[in-house]
């Protein structure tokens, strides 16, 4: 370790041009993203404002919570395609249980107003059950998580749509949410958006869980080398179930928040969110090879994506152009990240 460090230092002085190039390549993705931000700021200087900053943080909040969920699974060398549908399920369930009493098209026309915690818990439980099934199937039958969660994604869409159609008004978007619910999610406390506060609290919780508990260390160990963890007495099955359960909790909370943030929910809510969350994790350095990933990485990944998409919309860039840029960023970020580990070629 020491030899390579001093080598790099020595060579930095010896052939600095060569090494500067290296430095540029290694940090290319950050440089590119800053270049994009700079471009946005130059074309529209009003981008630099408290209001924009606030909006970006608010828009990042739910994405970040979802990213934490799937990040744990990625650390276990997995992935979760069913994330979006789980979020949709949580959103529809929360929305259907929290409509205003005077709203015309109520899902449950005669239901009393519930305490907010009840729908939240139900949303979490629904997601935890489905996510734990994912975890069980992956750990027990050694099915690749891509396939296991793809199956879950399709199955869930069916169940979700049946539930969605079973309400009193039939399959119609669920809206007219209870004011307490809307207020909790889109309101502010002491000038800070509640969503941002919630995301910050969850970030602290996840950081402690990942870094300071046996669960977190076991997660990294199982993700880094399942065989080694097993012979050292880590219960791999339990670790899988816990990580997928935690993901379910995050999806449940995310879906609950998302319905109120958008102001309505239907069986298509959440579709495609899995790819956003996975992309943010990967750009943030949470490696698909497993065993590597930090809370700060998830935060950085989510913020980068939000800033870029918000900023590009802000300067009025065509939406399809945005897709092209985002897609390129994902592949570029991963290939550059991989290059850091593969010093060979």
């Amino acid at each position, binding site marked *: 370790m020491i030899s390579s460090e001093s080598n790099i230092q020595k060579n930095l002085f010896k052939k600095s041009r060569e090494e500067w190039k290296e430095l540029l390549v290694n940090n290319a993705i950050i440089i590119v993203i800053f270049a994009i931000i700079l471009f946005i700021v130059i074309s529209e200087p009003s981008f630099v404002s408290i209001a924009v900053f606030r909006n970006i943080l608010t828009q990042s909040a739910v994405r970040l919570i979802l990213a934490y969920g799937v990040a744990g699974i990625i650390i276990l060398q997995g992935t979760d395609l069913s994330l979006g549908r789980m979020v949709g399920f949580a959103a529809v369930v929360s929305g259907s249980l929290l409509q205003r009493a005077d709203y015309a098209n109520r899902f449950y026309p005669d239901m009393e107003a519930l305490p907010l915690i009840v729908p939240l818990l139900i949303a979490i439980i629904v997601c935890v059950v489905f996510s734990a099934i994912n975890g069980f199937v992956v750990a027990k039958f050694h099915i690749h998580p891509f396939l296991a969660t793809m199956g879950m994604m399709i199955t869930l869409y069916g169940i979700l749509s049946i539930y969605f159609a079973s309400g009193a008004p039939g399959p119609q978007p669920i809206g007219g949410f209870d004011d307490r619910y809307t207020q909790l999610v889109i309101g502010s406390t002491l000038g800070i958006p509640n969503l941002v506060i919630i995301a910050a609290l969850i970030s602290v919780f996840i950081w402690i869980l990942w870094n*300071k508990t*046996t669960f977190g260390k076991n997660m990294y160990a199982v993700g880094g080398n399942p065989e080694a963890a097993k012979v050292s007495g880590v219960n791999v099955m339990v670790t899988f179930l816990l990580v997928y359960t935690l993901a379910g909790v995050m999806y449940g909370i995310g879906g609950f928040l998302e319905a109120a943030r958008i102001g309505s929910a239907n069986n298509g809510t959440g579709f495609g969110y899995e790819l956003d969350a996975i992309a943010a994790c990967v750009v943030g350095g949470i490696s698909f090879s497993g065993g590597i990933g930090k809370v700060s990485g998830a935060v950085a990944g989510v913020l980068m994506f939000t800033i870029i998409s918000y900023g590009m919309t802000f300067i009025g860039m065509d939406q399809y152009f945005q897709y092209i840029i985002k897609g390129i960023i994902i592949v570029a970020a991963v290939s550059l990240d991989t290059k850091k580990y593969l010093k060979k070629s």
Partner: protein
Amino acid sequence: MQEEYLLSIKDVCKSFSGVKVLKNVCLNIKPGTIHSLMGENGAGKSTLMKCLFGIYKQDEGEFFFKGEPFNFTDPKHALENGVSMVHQELNQVTKRTITDNIWLGRYPTKGMFVDEKKMLKDTLDLFKRLNIHLDPRTRLDQLSVSQRQMVEIAKAVSYDAKIIVLDEPTSSLTSHEVEMLFDIMRVLKDGGVGIVYISHKMEEIFEVSDEVTILRDGFYIGTEKIEDLTMEKIVNMMVGRDLDDRFPQKDNEPGDIHMAVKNLSTKYPPFVHDVNFELRRGEILGVAGLVGAGRTEMLEAIFGARTLTSGEIHIDGKKIDNSTPHKSINNKFALLTEERRETGLYPIADITFNSCISNISSYKNKMGFLVDKQMKEDTDLQIKNMRIKTPNRREKIRSLSGGNQQKVIIGRWLLTNPDILLLDEPTRGIDVGAKYEIYQLIINLAKSGKSIIVVSSEMPELLGITNRIMVMSNGYVAGTVNTEETTQTEIFNLSTKFLNNSREAEV
């Protein structure tokens, strides 16, 4: 009677699908001794250990630990009862720190949280006892193989292991690292631990063991005190036949200069700095050096598998382009990689596939389809020429022994008809009998006009089969010596030449 032994294995038998692989095997380990377990590959050493650790269930026989009969259900169970094994292929979470690895599965907690302070302190205490100088907060992927091995041994000790099985721990260590390992083993021995030491290296067995037990073809051959043994006697017991010499007659004759390597330097670490040498036609050139000296990297650089900052390769005085492995293969180079399992084998594929894959385009017919018949013929020819022990060419390569796997891979490269063979640790993990055959093969290839570079960590092997030895140190060539005129001391001194001159020495 049994009380005298810490671990006692009595008359263990084990069969797989009707074939008896262990026949009444016994092993008795006294406390405070280093007990070597020897035998050719396939002699039953690993099967015996797997029975001990509960991975297999023995058909007959008993195990006694401190006089009590026992049967472990799995390695974890054994570990908790003071019997642990350090595997040849280290099973660690390389992306985590030393402390995280040692205490994995039993992190000390304070309330809800992991007690990092206690973990760090316990690790430091452990390292102090074993005289290991590493920062416990280092990630394992920053360590060398030998350092990682020490971590694994420390882990075994932390479980208060009374019996530690070391499975070929020195196969990838340099002599200096081996000495450090032996020091730790002696510390443990003085603490009353019984060590089972599995190795193929004679010199080490004589240096470190107290007793030796030898198995052959699943039979228990005998246990002797090391004072009563000689190298010849061990070899006789192991192979059941006389090997008057461990190395075949070296009768190749180097000719004119075949390849010249000039100013070879790599761009990325581990670095190779300004390597210059010449290789004669039909010559066997050894490459010696400590682990981390850049030997493997030098071979990879020649083969086009590493990015260069400078360097030219000349064949018969003409400059050639070896910038990618593909081009190198076209230039008639072949590289036998060090990590057979990782970079050489297609384990679930059969021998035919493994033999023909590097040369697959030459089996195409005019239509562009592959011709099975030609591949089968070539594979059968290799199996016959190289005396590969296998029922047929359709056998999956992973079911062969290490020596036979190596032969298949050498055979694969021979099918590409190379002129220059780069062999990286060609006999690692291979038993004495198979080694001899590989040596003979290498010498025969040299006699047929092929030029060969052999990288090896086994000094006797380099002295036994090469014509000249180039010694590398810290990425530089420290010197080249004539095999006939050199000594182990001279090579060792050369290999440490650049360690002190620069600040880059490994800690």
